[in-house]
Structure formats: structure tokens, C-alpha cells
């Protein structure tokens, strides 16, 4: 064992958006020993009595992935792009290193599950009965490297499904039912949404956000504009909107009018002059604790932040149309941008200089925590295995003493529960696992089930251009029907049939097989490819205690660390939504004269039969729910500040905290409550540093 010596105030596991946000916000604050308070760097002045917060981050990915000086970051990123060019299957993980020491779940590894045998081809061990269909990436910056960047907020009712619709879910291994309301309301989260939208740099037009909510836009957003102007909608969007405007679809629950909404997105457009100056997120001390506020900085205009290596590259989305899996110019937000702000601070001469109080140790796979029962069950150590190189699987066992530190797990919704479940300790009452007195660690795994429908528009709509999606149909995001079946959101996809049908490659192959060549081949392909449209139905999944991540000593990775073992299934509530969504799709296709090419077959890895009809779905990459927050310690892993109920110095952050999924992509919401958790972390740090 080789404990890392110098003491740290905060240990963060993972450099994804959750970990990077916390690192950024904490490193912006210092401890003013005179006042006994944490203050923002800008307000600290030049007192001798300022103490910096020392932060250590562990990252499972390669060293190169977190070297963020201009030259190194450009070299690494360009290597990702070259890999992407060469990979035949351009799936989300395709540009990034495939590490045996820190494997990433990959959609290509997903197989049919023939029970009782699990699919263990990739990193996940999947017991099913249905395969979990989403992936994530373990490199510096995490999964935002290949996310799409769609950033709608959740709706007020999403936070209170029990109160509003009476939805309850079973308790683990019991017939008793429990509520699924969040411990915070939309109202409480709203200021933090603004902070998250600032940090991510969201482009959008508030006045065009139309949702099936009873609140008015002014109440939902307040007097607010997004930092940047709306990302232009695609030509295809306009054609579809033209054809559907003012119409509605009829579902089993009644008529639902169609609302086509330009999606807010984490990609650069033109900074909105109305947004004003750039902002700072800073903590204001309160009588007890801290409140974060989004303060206008008098210093600078708001600017779009381009690539990590050159801020003038990627200032606008250039229409590379490869947001998933990689944006070549980093016009799309990724967490490396926030991580770089944590690592580099302005010095007195307004130059960026390396923050010496922050350290990131890469190639370090955290696998276990130790708990000190004699010290109010504090986390006393974080254990990790540091591998030597990409090629070799030798590793050095390390641990760090955390008895005087705050530990933050930000390793994503597969890894956080995996680490917690692997942290066993013996108490007089028996063997326990970390943060798990509620028995909720690893449970309630959720994703949006992405049912796709695709067809040919009667005239060319010229897909395969622009960001992945620029418009969504928001009509089905909320309504009384949620008592009966899932809500969903329907993004329109700008990339043709790429996802469901591997177009355009499959179209080329098809017409060649049909013996077409020359001008005729060219015509056929032009016709087919320029008319392709794809609709998504991202269906909300309710928390279900049996959908879960567990571990099992039988399944270890090459470093001897347990792999996530997944149990996953769908309920009638979600399957009924698929039926209803397909019905909605059929009606919209008919109205638009779209020739339907949708086909769900038994060969699809993820498919279910409901009322005698087959439906297939994909994962959305929205890995959610495995360490839910709640208002009661017996029913949740953390409180609303992501602090575990069981350990006074342990926070767990990320989409895993989400109590329910709603119909929005999760990252903006996880960012909002992760930012909010900093208030509690600062309060804990104050106590810690006063000692």
C-alpha cells in the first residue's frame, strides 16, 4: 500500500460534468480564516488569512485525456477525431480509447439475453430479462464528450408524480408502496438551472419554449433569456412543422395538440446581447450555510467558449453533424471546458495560470471506500488501482486517507453504486455496504427507451446536416395520461436513418444489391437519402427497485475490480406508452404523407411484444436513478444536496440522484442539483477548515 501523503480537503472521483462542476465551483472559493467563511476568489482580496481549498480528483481514463494545456489537449483530441474517421461503426464510444483497465459499456457489446445466462460480452454483465441499452465513456471529461447536448429542463410535475398523479412504486422486496416525489421542487431548482445553463452555455429562445404545463412561460422561466440565441432549426424541421402545425393526435387518453419546440442546446450559437455580461457563480454566506447566486460580472461580455485548446475555435456550431460521438471543434459543450476552468485560474496579471491546489490523478480506478465506525461512520479511505500504461494491466494499489476530507463520488450512475456496493464493513448488526442503509444503492436504474420510427418524406428534406436534433415535439411530456402510461418527448432527428438503419451505408449496399449502377444508382440514392426522416419517442421509465446495478465476485475486470451486474426490465406502464407513441407516429406520418419504413424484428436486441405487437427500443444514454435522493433516510441514498444519509463526509453526485426521470435529457438537471450540492459542501468545508 502506498498512501498518497499530502492531505487534501476534497477528493472527487471522476472528471465528468458532475465532478468537474464541483471542482470548478469549489476551486473558485477560498477560506477566509479571519471571517471563518468560504468566499469567492474575486471577493477575497489580498488578506494573508486566505486558505485555498486543496482538491484531488481521480480519473479512471488515460493521463492524456486530462492534460489540458493547449498543445496536449489538442493532440489528444485530434487523435480521438482521427480514430473516429477510421472506425467503421461510428457508435458513441468509437473515437475514444477502449481501455481494458477501465472499460466502458459499449452499445456494440449488447446481445440478446437468453435467461438464465447473462450477456457478459462487454463491460456490463447483463442478466436482463431485457438488455440495458445505453453506454457511457470512461475518459477525462466523461460522457459529455459524446453526448448530444440537448438541454431541456424538467417540468414542474416531473418532481411530484406521486402528489400529482398518485404514482407509487414498490419498496425493495416488499408489497408496500412508496412515493416517487423529489425532495426538491422545480421552483427550488430554478436558480440552479440558470447556473447550469450559464456554465454549459445553452443556446435557445425562452419565448419559444412551449410545454403542456399549467404554469405560464414567465412563471416557468421567470424573466430570463438563455445565454445564447437559438440554434437554427433544420430545413427538415421546417418542413415537418409546416405539415403538422395546428394539428393534434388522438391517443387512448384523448386529443393531444402538437407543439413543435426548438430545443435548447449546449452548443455555441450567437451570444444573446440581452443576456448581458458574463456571470460568476458565487456563494453568499447565510446565517447558517451558503446560498449560490449567479452574479453578473462587470468585467466581461458573455462569450461563447470554444475548444479547450483554442477559445476561438468552435465559437459557433459549424454544422459538423457529428455531435455524437465527437464535435471536431468543441462547439458542443463538454466537461473538459469546466475542468479546465478548475485547473487554470486568472492570476493578478489576468493571465491563466495553473491552479496549484488542484491535482488530477489519472489512470486511477477507484473501487472501494473504507468506513470508520468509531468516527461517526466517516469515509476514512478511498482505495484505487493505478495502472501503469494503456498496454499493461499491472497496477499499483493506492489509498488516500480521507478522515479529514470530503469525498465526492462523481463516477456516473453505473460506477457510483458499484463502488458503494464494493465498500463493505462489518457492524454489530452485520455486514453493511456504504451509504446503503436504505437498501436503495444500485436500484431504480432508469433510461429513456428510445423508440424510433423512420420513413421517406414526399419531397427532399436534406437530412444529414446540422446538429443531431434541433426540434422536439413537447406535447406528450405531461398530462393526465401519466396515471396510465409514460410521458415522452419526441425529438426530430437531423441525421436520416443513420441510427436505426446504418444509413447511408446500408442504402448504398441495398441499391448495389438491387443491381443498380451509374446514373440510375446515383438518382436512386439521392432520392432515398434526401428524403429520410427519423422521429424519436424518448419514453420515461419509472423507478423500479428491481432494475438495478449489483456486483458479484464472479465477474471482475482485469484489475480485479467488480464489473456492474445489471438487472433490467420494462413494465406495462412503459410498454403501453410505446403502443401509444407508435399510434401517434402513425398519425403524424399519415398527415405528412411519409412512407413508413419502420420495422421492428425479433433480431432487434431490445424488443418487446405488447398486445400482440412488437416494439423495439434503443438506449438514450440517460443512465439514471441508482443512488436516488429523497427526503427520508429510509427511502433514499442522499438528501437533496446529494449528501449521503449514512456518512457525514460522503457526497454522491450525477444522474444517479434523480428520483424520477421525466422526459428531459438528464444532464442539465443533474448539473443544476450538483451545483446546488456545493452549498452543502461549502458548509461542511467551513467546519472542516475551522478545526
Amino acid at each position: 500500500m502506498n498512501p498518497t501523503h499530502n492531505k487534501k480537503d476534497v477528493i472527487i472521483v471522476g472528471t465528468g460534468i458532475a465532478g468537474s462542476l464541483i471542482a470548478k465551483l469549489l476551486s473558485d472559493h477560498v477560506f477566509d480564516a479571519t471571517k471563518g467563511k468560504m468566499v469567492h476568489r474575486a471577493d477575497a482580496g489580498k488578506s494573508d488569512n486566505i486558505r485555498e481549498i486543496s482538491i484531488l480528483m481521480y480519473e479512471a481514463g488515460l493521463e492524456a485525456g486530462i492534460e489540458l494545456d493547449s498543445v496536449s489537449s489538442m493532440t489528444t483530441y485530434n487523435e480521438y477525431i482521427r480514430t473516429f474517421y477510421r472506425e467503421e461503426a461510428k457508435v458513441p464510444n468509437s473515437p475514444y480509447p477502449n481501455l481494458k483497465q477501465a472499460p466502458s459499456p459499449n452499445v456494440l457489446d449488447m446481445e440478446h439475453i437468453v435467461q438464465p445466462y447473462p450477456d457478459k460480452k462487454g463491460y456490463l454483465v447483463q442478466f436482463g430479462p431485457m438488455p440495458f441499452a445505453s453506454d457511457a465513456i470512461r475518459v477525462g471529461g466523461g460522457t459529455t464528450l459524446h453526448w448530444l447536448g440537448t438541454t431541456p429542463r424538467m417540468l414542474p410535475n416531473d418532481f411530484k408524480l406521486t402528489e400529482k398523479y398518485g404514482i407509487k412504486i414498490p419498496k425493495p422486496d416488499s408489497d408496500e408502496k412508496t412515493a416517487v416525489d423529489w425532495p426538491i421542487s422545480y421552483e427550488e431548482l430554478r436558480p440552479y438551472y440558470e447556473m447550469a445553463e450559464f456554465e454549459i452555455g445553452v443556446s435557445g429562445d425562452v419565448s419559444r419554449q412551449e410545454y403542456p404545463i399549467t404554469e405560464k412561460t414567465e412563471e416557468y422561466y421567470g424573466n430570463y433569456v438563455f445565454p445564447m440565441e437559438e440554434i437554427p432549426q433544420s430545413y427538415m424541421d421546417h418542413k415537418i412543422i409546416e405539415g403538422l402545425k395546428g394539428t393534434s393526435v388522438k391517443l387512448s387518453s384523448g386529443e393531444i395538440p402538437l407543439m413543435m419546440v426548438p430545443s435548447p442546446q449546449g452548443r455555441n450559437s450567437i451570444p444573446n446581447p440581452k443576456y448581458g455580461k458574463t456571470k460568476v457563480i458565487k456563494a453568499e454566506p447565510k446565517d447558517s450555510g451558503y446560498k449560490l447566486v449567479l452574479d453578473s460580472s462587470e468585467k466581461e461580455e458573455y462569450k461563447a467558449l470554444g475548444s479547450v485548446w483554442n477559445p476561438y475555435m468552435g465559437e459557433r456550431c459549424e454544422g459538423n453533424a457529428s455531435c455524437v460521438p465527437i464535435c471536431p471543434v468543441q462547439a458542443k459543450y463538454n466537461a473538459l471546458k469546466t475542468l479546465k476552468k478548475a485547473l487554470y485560474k486568472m492570476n493578478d496579471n489576468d493571465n491563466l495560470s495553473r491552479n496549484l491546489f488542484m491535482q488530477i490523478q489519472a489512470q486511477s480506478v477507484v473501487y472501494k471506500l473504507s468506513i470508520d465506525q468509531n468516527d461517526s461512520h466517516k469515509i476514512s479511505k478511498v482505495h484505487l488501482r493505478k495502472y501503469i500504461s494503456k498496454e499493461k494491466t499491472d497496477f499499483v494499489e493506492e489509498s488516500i486517507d480521507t478522515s479529514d476530507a470530503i469525498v465526492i463520488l462523481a463516477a456516473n450512475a453505473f460506477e457510483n453504486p458499484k463502488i458503494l456496493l464494493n465498500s463493505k464493513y462489518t457492524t454489530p448488526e452485520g455486514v453493511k455496504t456504504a451509504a446503503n442503509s436504505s437498501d436503495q444503492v444500485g436500484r431504480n436504474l432508469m433510461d429513456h427507451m428510445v423508440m424510433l420510427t423512420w420513413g421517406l418524406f414526399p419531397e427532399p428534406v436534406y437530412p444529414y446536416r446540422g446538429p443531431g436534433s434541433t426540434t422536439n415535439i413537447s406535447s406528450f411530456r405531461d398530462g393526465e395520461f401519466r396515471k396510465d402510461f409514460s410521458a415522452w418527448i419526441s425529438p426530430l432527428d437531423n441525421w436520416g436513418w443513420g441510427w436505426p438503419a446504418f444509413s447511408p451505408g446500408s442504402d448504398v449496399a441495398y441499391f448495389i444489391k438491387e443491381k443498380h449502377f451509374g446514373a440510375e444508382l446515383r438518382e436512386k440514392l439521392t432520392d432515398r437519402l434526401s428524403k429520410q426522416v427519423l422521429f424519436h419517442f424518448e419514453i420515461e421509465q419509472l423507478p423500479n427497485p428491481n432494475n438495478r446495478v449489483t456486483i458479484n465476485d464472479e465477474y471482475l475486470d482485469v484489475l480485479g475490480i467488480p464489473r456492474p451486474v445489471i438487472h433490467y426490465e420494462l413494465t406495462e406502464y412503459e410498454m403501453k406508452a410505446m403502443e401509444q407513441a407508435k399510434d401517434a407516429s402513425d398519425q403524424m406520418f399519415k398527415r405528412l404523407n411519409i412512407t413508413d419504413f419502420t420495422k421492428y424484428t425479433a433480431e432487434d436486441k431490445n424488443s418487446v411484444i405488447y398486445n400482440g405487437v412488437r416494439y423495439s427500443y434503443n438506449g438514450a444514454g440517460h443512465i439514471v436513478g441508482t443512488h436516488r435522493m429523497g427526503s427520508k433516510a429510509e427511502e433514499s441514498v442522499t438528501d437533496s444536496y446529494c449528501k449521503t444519509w449514512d456518512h457525514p463526509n460522503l457526497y454522491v453526485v450525477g444522474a444517479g440522484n434523480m428520483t424520477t426521470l421525466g422526459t428531459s435529457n438528464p444532464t442539465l438537471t443533474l448539473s443544476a442539483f450538483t451545483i446546488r450540492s456545493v452549498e452543502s459542501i461549502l458548509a461542511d468545508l467551513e467546519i472542516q477548515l475551522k478545526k
Partner: protein
Amino acid sequence: MNIINKILNVDDYYFDVFMSISEALTGFTVNELQSTGLAETYYTYVLKCLEAATFVEFLTVSKNILESSSGEEELKKAIQSEIIAHPGMNDISGKVITMWYLGTWEGAYINDLSYKEGLVWNLMHSHPPGAKQPGYKSWNIKPVNTQS
């Protein structure tokens, strides 16, 4: 006559045959094909991947077709009967078309450039994802080259 040596010499007429038959098979002109910057790379690549005799046979058949057909219709018919209807020739022609259209040979990209220069993107008035980006807001309107 040692044909293999002649083929390896890129200046020789077999290269021209390859380009001309590629034009007839893909529906893109020799000029358009040349502008990918990959013509010679593809030619030598195919030579490396196929058994020399097979490629020579394909080129010889192609040469005969090209020389003996006067006019497009005739050429089309000849290709149909002598290449498309013939399983072995058809297999090669499919591979050659795919190479030009997508930049791949048996599923693998030939090099970075071949991904970027896949002609399928031109044909649908788009561009390869992650390269040759058209610029902010370009997706909001009809592609420029469809207006004419």
C-alpha cells in the same frame, strides 16, 4: 507481356480503364472521381486486395466493354450483361462502387481521407459527419447546390 508490372505503373492505360469503368459504375465523372484525390490510392489498393489475375480480368472485361460500346445506352447494356450479370465481376464492381461512395473496402476505411471523400455525401448535398463542415446555420436552408 507482364501485365502485373504494367498495372503497378500508375500511368498505364489500365489505370485509365479503372477510372473510366468507375465513372460508368458510380455515375460520377472521371473529373469528380479525380477530385477526391484518391484515384491512384484506390487503384493500388484494389490491386493489393484482389488477386492480380482477378483484377486484370475485371479491367480487361471493362476495357473491352468501354472500347466496343458507342454511346451511353450501349455501354449501360454491356455493363449489365458482362459485369452485373456475372457474379464474380458483379462482386468486384459492387466493391468498387462502395469504395468510391463510402471510402470503405469490405467494411474498412482505406484511410482518413477516404472517409472524408466518400461521394455519398456529395450526392445527398451533405458532407461527411465531423469533416468539411458547411458553417453556422447552413442546415437551416436548402443546400446551396440544390438550387440550380
